């Protein structure tokens, strides 16, 4: 089952309220996305931890309804 980009963005922002999120539908099939997430909450965290925070915001959908979400995470530059 596919998920739309608006839902993905909403879930990420619910979990990480300050996040700047941009989502690209890579194949136009509603199933393969790339997301760039920038959030102050990522400061001092490893990449694995940053991605885990995004997955947590997606509440179990990653790997289920959401098949492919290429993630790029970073903290905002000062």
């Amino acid at each position, binding site marked *: 089952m596919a998920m739309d980009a608006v839902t993905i963005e909403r879930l990420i922002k619910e979990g990480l309220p300050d996040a700047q999120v941009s989502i690209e539908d890579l194949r136009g099939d509603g199933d393969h996305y790339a997301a760039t997430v920038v959030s102050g909450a990522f400061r001092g965290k490893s990449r694995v931890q940053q*991605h*885990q925070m995004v997955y947590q915001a997606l509440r179990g959908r990653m790997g289920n309804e959401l098949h492919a979400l*290429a993630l790029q995470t970073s903290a905002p530059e000062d």
Partner: protein
Amino acid sequence: MDTTTHDRIRQQVTDNSVVLFMKGTPVFPQCGFSATVVQILSHIGVKFKGVDVLADSSVREGIKEFSAWPTIPQLYVKGEFIGGCDIIREMFETGELQQMFEEKGVPVRA
């Protein structure tokens, strides 16, 4: 996840320096993301053990819980979870991946 599965995964990542939990085998990956990581590891000349999660549904679900990571592939080096496809690709592009292997004492092709 039952304790047997947990212990089995723990054993695999302890007994082998570099373990890739993947869909399919290193020779025949069954998923593009797994194939990407296999290509990167082969490219930098790191020997690894591939664990095909499609061959064992308890490991397929168990590894997600074990790593708190929802997707396959997953790379372990010296017992430590390094990341999935995106992170490995990003680390490879910046050179951090090769550096990490060297720091952990895993031989890479010069």
